[in-house]
């Protein structure tokens, strides 16, 4: 449940669900997000312009011409939330090629974690991940939790350009760069699969908060010949 509600400036409500990052808290955030999204879509509430769920926060932006902080806060406090995260519990499998030219940071991980490339891949591919949120850039999923043995800090100096499709790990999280972008995650491979599709107007992001994601390894040949 929401631990504290405050204002983020004069056009957003900041809902704090706690400070830890885990599936229970995040599922709670997603329940509120889904519930409010439905009310907005069905035009049962007015003035909400954006809902931004993250690990343990939900930001509700509103149009100050239509409503205000006090009204929106009251609305959120009076919601009766039913958990329907199960509906969101879709399983998605993502192919990844980990050849040297795509897995840019194996050397760094070898040194930092004192663990072989083979072991990193075994630990990475043997787990199913939970999608906590999407964002920063369009459709980028924040997944967790990676095995404790392969948790590593961000690069000291972020890359100016991380190639589109790169799969990265940092701390307890994994993500996929849906566009070429600056970034500091440890890159271990690249997926040929389209994760964000702007032509799909209804569901542009393949991966949504609450989804379960597993990765499987493909060869360079499979990567180059990938056809969706």
């Amino acid at each position, binding site marked *: 449940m929401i631990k504290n509600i405050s204002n983020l*400036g004069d056009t957003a409500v900041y809902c704090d669900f706690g400070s830890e990052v885990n599936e229970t808290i995040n599922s709670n955030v997603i329940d509120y997000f889904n519930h409010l*999204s439905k009310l907005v879509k069905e035009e049962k509430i007015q003035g909400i312009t954006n809902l*931004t*769920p993250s690990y343990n926060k939900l930001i509700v932006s509103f149009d*100050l011409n239509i409503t205000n902080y006090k009204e929106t806060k009251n609305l959120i406090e009076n919601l009766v939330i039913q958990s329907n995260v199960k509906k969101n519990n879709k399983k998605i499998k993502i192919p990844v090629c980990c050849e040297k030219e795509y897995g840019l940071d194996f050397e760094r991980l070898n040194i930092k974690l004192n663990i072989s490339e083979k072991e990193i891949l075994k630990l990475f591919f043997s787990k199913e991940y939970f999608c906590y949120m999407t964002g920063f850039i369009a459709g*980028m999923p924040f997944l967790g939790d990676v095995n404790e043995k392969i948790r590593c800090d961000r690069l000291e100096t972020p890359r100016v350009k991380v190639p589109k499709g790169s799969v990265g790990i940092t701390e307890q999280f994994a993500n996929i760069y849906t566009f070429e972008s600056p970034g500091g995650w440890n890159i271990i491979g690249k997926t040929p699969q389209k994760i964000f599709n702007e032509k799909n107007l209804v569901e542009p992001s393949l991966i949504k908060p609450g989804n379960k994601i597993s990765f499987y390894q493909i060869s360079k040949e499979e990567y180059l010949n990938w056809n969706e």
Partner: protein
Amino acid sequence: MSNVYFEILRPGINTTIQDCGRNHMYHEGIAVSGAIDQRNFKIANKLVDNHLNEAVLEFAYQGPLLILKNNKINFSITGDVIFKIIRKNLKIEDGTCYKNYILEEDDQLDIISTKNTAYGYLSVNGGFQIDKLWNSYSINTKAKIGPNNGKKYSTEDKIFIKNSRLKKIKKIEINFSELSDNIIRVIKGTNFDYFSSEAQNSFFNKEFSVTKLADRMGIRLSGYNLENVISTNIKSEGLVRGTIQVPADGNPIIMLSDHGTIGGYPKIGVVIAADLDRVGQLTPGSSISFKEVSLEEAENIFKAYNEDTNKYINECN
């Protein structure tokens, strides 16, 4: 389909289509975008008798040089902008902002530059012939979405204009004046207590200057390093336009319309809605200072901002 269009002879630095923005997409990682200066965007539309949310051309610093093809149009430019109209017979007229003009077929419009601000707006009666994506015309060059495949305009691109109803054109010119002080009003951020008391005082008392790293995504400031005494990282969470984040180096960054939708730096403050237009218009090298206001004050200032905007809109009638 209309066959009336502008051909771009010189694109300018960052020329894009914008409107009031794209809502309900933050959770997909897509920023609101939209015109940086919402007031000037609305006035531009009203000057040519458009709906206030019709798509306009936004330009930054150096604007585009355009030639009009296949019909005449009614246009207007708002902001602090120097522009000329080059008539087909090569006669050159100096342009005045906040006034509507007729541009004839084969005339050129040379938007030379903005003066003391970053952005200006070009509106045409009837609007541009483009499609909305997720309920907005705005070009988001970061996510590569919106008209023109999400890219800023280049030389030889054509921007089609809807067939307008150019029957009787009322000449309109309004007097626009904006207060020019650089005091930006903010509400304390959700991580205000992460900063040392000295940093908290300095935030509201020192001057900051706008660095060269200023664009539609955000503005980086320098001048005083704000000391963080708790943690220079937070678990990534949503951002809104106007959020002031402070990374480990202590230099604040103000988020603007094309910002990343989530971020992991502590938030020291949030610029109030009424001051977002002015913040967005700041140019590199200018000095600003922050003034704390309460939520209630911010809401009242927003009402006054709206009344002011409506005053200009009504002057166009």
